């Protein structure tokens, strides 16, 4: 098996130590883009396993942890070598909600999928999202929230975009354990996801990429 294929299988099997060692080895022999591709392949497999019910949230959280360790190793070279991304996602937990576990898993998977993610943190007021959309001109705005109360803040954020004439400039996806089709309609979002892997898949669709 090639080194890159070994990375794919070690990461997809969530073998942290082996993955980290293989990445260190690969940094001597491969470009960052090649290593990144292997990681993306692995997170795709992890996503599929989750959708099939073979993996659970405990595995996604751990995959996020491994990916963040990989990023630390790649980072010094990443900024120099990495050429292009699929697009930019401005991401944050909406106003009034301070939970970030779901947001952070989504962020790891979105970065692994080669999106550039601007993370605004938690309890982000609508105006701050608006300013970030103006500044970064993202393809996608990701609004996260755990509690049912977050759904109204998502709506207020989307309304703030409309008021600034920005709504048609960006696709909006809402995410969290309690969002659903009803919440999508209520908020006026373009898509909803109750899992990080589904969210990343939808982000690709939103920018016109098919699997």
């Amino acid at each position, binding site marked *: 098996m090639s080194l890159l294929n070994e990375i794919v299988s070690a990461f997809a099997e969530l073998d*942290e130590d082996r993955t980290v060692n293989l990445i260190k080895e690969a940094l001597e022999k491969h470009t960052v883009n090649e290593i990144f591709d292997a990681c993306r392949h692995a997170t795709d497999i992890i996503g599929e396993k989750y959708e099939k*019910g073979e*993996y*659970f*949230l*405990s*595995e996604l*959280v*751990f995959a996020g*942890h491994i990916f963040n360790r990989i990023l630390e190793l790649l980072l010094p070279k990443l900024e120099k070598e990495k050429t292009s991304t699929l697009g930019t996602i401005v991401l944050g937990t909406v*106003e*009034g*909600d*301070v*939970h970030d*576990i779901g947001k*952070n898993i989504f962020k790891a998977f979105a970065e692994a999928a080669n999106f550039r993610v601007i993370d605004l943190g938690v*309890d982000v007021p609508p105006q701050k999202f608006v300013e970030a959309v103006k500044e970064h001109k993202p393809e996608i705005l990701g609004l996260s929230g755990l*509690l*049912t*109360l977050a*759904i*109204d803040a998502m709506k207020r954020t989307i309304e703030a975009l409309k008021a600034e004439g920005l709504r048609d400039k960006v696709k909006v996806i809402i995410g969290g*354990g*309690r*969002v*659903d089709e*009803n*919440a999508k*309609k*209520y908020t006026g979002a373009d898509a909803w996801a*109750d899992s990080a892997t589904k969210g990343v898949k939808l982000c690709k669709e939103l920018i016109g990429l098919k699997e």
Partner: protein
Amino acid sequence: MSKIDLEKLAEQRWRRIEAAANLKEPDKVPLELNLDFGFRAKWYGITTYDFFFDYEKAKNAIIATAVDFPTDFPPLPMFGSGSLLGFALRDHPDISQIAGVLTGPMHDILRDKYTRWPGREISPNAGSFQFLGGEFLKAEEYDDFIKDPFGFIAEVVTPRAHQSLEKPGSAEAMATLIRVAVEGLKYIKAVDSLVNELIKLGYPSLLASITSVPLDFLGDFLRTIPGILLDLRKKPDKVKEACDVLMKETMPRRIILTSKSTGFVLIPLHLNEYLSPKFYYEFYWPHLKRIITDLYNQGVKCQVAFEGRHDAYLESILELPKGWGIALFEKTDVRKAKKVLEGHTCVMGGIPPTLLLNATPKEVEDYVRKLLEEVMPGGGFILSTSTAIPAEVPPENVKSVINAVEKYGVYRR
């Protein structure tokens, strides 16, 4: 209504809940509405900040919504978060009750790091206080924790988790504890008065308590959820030992505390949805099963909130004694749950709060009618929302649920 009529009403409501819990058909499908604090505050015309920082206002808001949105279950007489101090003081039951809840004013006094409150860290109109938890037990400290878990919480965790208690024995720390006690007495007085008012309104007196599974306790209060999930992989033996020692330490007390219970012991689950089968069956289910079974053997029933999607573990519920209590489902379809658990476990839930956000009252009515047609035959079903109803839900949609149960939820007149 006269006093006698109200007593009858309370009795009728309790019989209804009891029959469903005992897997029978009551006269009507019992209803519970989990109105979020923010919904109650808004209905009463105050901010959630007012609600959490003025017990009298909270009490009045709860009563106002209990009158205007009548259901079979009384609102939970609690308007605060679980408190680490309550665990630290658990060997002093005469005062641990005072410190068992963390209220808004207590948050100001203790300056705890694990909760966020409207009008403080978040907007005065944020729908509720929020529980964040924290890493107050470090990954390398499991052995110390296992030796004496509640001593560790009192001596190591408490100073870490509360800025005002950072220096145990200091004047500030001592003053803080006295201030919390004074505040706690005020809170208990408000809760007692609320409970009495609810009885006067014809609500059954469900004297209940809340408990948790050891792994959830570790995740929520001491290690954070991502932290405990990492521990499960990196130090599974320590996590297991910690869970076992918590079980051993807490089970006898759980039995004493719940022996006077007239309602259900509430067990909200958090990690159930996160865990893969390997973790669920080794670190979680054995403890949950034992808590429910031991309490059942003492004549106490539980109401378990299976948070998130519990589909993968639905059938394990059949391992519990038949009629053990009530299973509330969030994202697991209650129709499916009812089929799997028919004749064994009372199923509760069915209304996603997001439906109430969007629909017209007529659509809500149609939804409830269709749902009840499927799940009410044979009894053993309680209708409720799957999670809290946020402030922005139109009140007429909540009323539509209540009316729909009157119309379509009747087994016999």
